């Protein structure tokens, strides 16, 4: 039987809820994500990164919860604002800097950049830019595990409210429910699809209501509240793993950056920035740490310093490494070399 969506209404500013048991662990990944992304932004502004930089500022709490409850054997399909979740799932920091800085040693070897990276062999799927496409890919990966008789696995695919309007997303959600795979889809409504606000993106009352139509169980969430993110997304992962229907979590935040760093987001009105959902989840989490005295000031400062050191090292490593070269590249788009088409027109 389908469950009705659990609607918690619009997020309200409220006193910090008691922290989840993995609160500090999650906070540390958020801190590392924020640190590396701020550094990438300055490298971009200094002209040291080719292509775009896309950051998850304001979405780290939701994202980290997406990666934190997955195990190595689970499938993770992150999107462009999921640095924190990627770290929590196990992505090495140097993958980030190598990909952005075009090192030949990165997972994409200069063939693809920025946030399109992945390690499919380690169950971290490599997103394509066409939104919604990775939902069904995650479904297929889960079906393969089921075919092989594996047990106790889940998949988690990330999406935004922008991507939720793409046909591929609807098809992916529907097929996930038809196949009854253990899937969690976490949709972060950051209020803007590039520059387009919610009122030109969808006309339904609440995106979480769609869960019923898809055959998912639905939950909504204040994405600025780390504890709530850990509770709700952790709970969804647990339910999917236990064999309940696929789970949809819709989190509300504000994107605290442009779409990419080329975009100053001047289209976001000031009154939107004053909304409760516009809080910076990292600052909110930090305040919780201070209020509840979860860490002393020295430890917090040491964590910050360590994140900065790790990031500097990862950048220095990538900068030292060779870039790919056109003349030395293996220009075969397929692994079966004898089937590569020989054009001979060079």
């Amino acid at each position, binding site marked *: 039987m389908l469950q009705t969506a659990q609607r918690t209404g619009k997020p309200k500013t409220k006193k910090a809820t008691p922290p989840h048991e993995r609160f500090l662990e999650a906070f540390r990944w958020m801190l590392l994500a924020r640190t590396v992304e701020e550094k990438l932004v300055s490298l971009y502004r200094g002209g040291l990164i080719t292509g775009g930089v896309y950051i998850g500022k304001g979405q780290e709490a939701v994202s980290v919860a997406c990666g934190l409850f997955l195990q190595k054997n689970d*499938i993770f399909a992150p999107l462009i604002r999921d640095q924190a979740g990627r770290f929590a799932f196990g992505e090495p920091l140097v993958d980030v800097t190598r990909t952005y800085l075009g090192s030949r040693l990165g*997972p*994409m*070897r200069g*063939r*693809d950049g920025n946030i*399109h990276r*992945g*390690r*499919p*062999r380690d169950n971290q*799927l*490599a997103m*394509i*830019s*066409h939104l919604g*496409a*990775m*939902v*069904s*890919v*995650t*479904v*297929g*990966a*889960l*079906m*393969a*595990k089921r*075919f*092989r008789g594996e047990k106790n696995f889940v998949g988690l695919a990330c999406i935004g409210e922008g991507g939720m309007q793409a*046909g*591929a997303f609807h*098809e*992916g959600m*529907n*097929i996930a429910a*038809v*196949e009854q795979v253990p899937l969690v889809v976490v949709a972060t409504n950051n209020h803007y699809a590039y520059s387009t606000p919610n009122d030109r993106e969808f006309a339904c009352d609440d995106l979480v209501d769609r869960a019923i139509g898809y055959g998912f169980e639905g939950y909504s969430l204040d994405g600025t509240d780390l504890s709530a993110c850990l509770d709700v997304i952790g709970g969804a992962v647990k339910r999917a793993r236990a064999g309940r229907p696929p789970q949809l979590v819709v989190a509300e935040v504000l994107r605290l950056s442009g779409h990419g760093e080329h975009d100053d987001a001047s289209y976001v009105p000031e009154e939107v920035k004053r909304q409760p959902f516009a809080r910076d989840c990292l600052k909110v989490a930090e305040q919780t740490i201070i209020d509840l005295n979860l860490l002393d000031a020295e430890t917090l400062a040491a964590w910050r310093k360590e994140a900065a050191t790790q990031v500097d090292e990862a950048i220095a490593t990538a900068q030292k490494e060779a870039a790919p070269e056109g003349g030395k590249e293996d220009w075969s*788009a*397929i*692994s*079966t070399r*004898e*089937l*590569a*088409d*020989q*054009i*001979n*027109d060079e």
Partner: protein
Amino acid sequence: MSITYLEAIREAQAKLLRDDERVFIYGQDVGGTFGGAFKATKGLAKEFPGRVLNTPISEDAIVGTAIGAAIQGMRPIVEMQFADFSSLALNQILNNAGTHYWRTGVPVPITVRLPSGGTKGSGPFHSQSMESIYAHYPGLTVMTPATVEDAYTMLIEAVAIDDPVIYCEHKYLYYHLKADKLPGKGLPTGHARVAREGRDLTVVSYSAMVQESLAAAEELAREGFELEVVDLRTVKPLDTDTVLASVARTGRLLCVGESFPWGGATAEVIARVTNQGFHLLDAAPQRINAKDTPIPYHPNLWSAHRPNTKNIVAKARQLLRE
């Protein structure tokens, strides 16, 4: 005993399901007791429970699901109900499956079966030949079997290949072509076949157009002309060597393909022969494709729209006079 092109496709899938537990079939109406719009999977769902699965009408998600399963080690076969509908899965095929190995180093062994090409009365949306579109994009192997034997061995080969394969099976050939028995092994993938030897003119074609070209060769033989018919078998990779060797023998080239004329497989063959074998040519190479309009419904219009024996003969005669 005789076996049709369609039965060969079914038998190949039965063998694949039997021999390789990584194989499953995914597509609209392929499962249950129905066995597909053309019955290419008839009886397979019963014989292989849980491995021949009906899907919603969601071409994008069908291929996306197959990609995810393939990345995780399975060997899915996707049946598109008609090649025409694969336009709805282009994004997954071209941008996901086609880029994946290049981007990540992890190949995507999916086989997408496309019931292709025209049959009488099928109209604009159930008649298309999509091979040129798929061949245009990197990362895909595009098969276009023209015989019962190739339909069988090439499908088995397609699933064995570690990369995505677009397998274009021609609906006109489903019932029209018959063989006495199924072969053990075919030519390697990527090798063209000289379907008929001749010394006066090379006709390069693939899929159902091989049969039309052979009929044209037969007709012109009565007038004393010997046409050599080359069956490409795979449009990509394109066996330029076999084509050039044939043109070296004949000095004349006519390419025949059923897809639309702009760009495409026939244009590619002519470009390569002109580029690499200009000195071999005694006359300007020619080609025949479908007309540059949507595919018509009425048999009178349809038979004039696609290349056929009659216009291949006419074009060949003209080329032989030059």
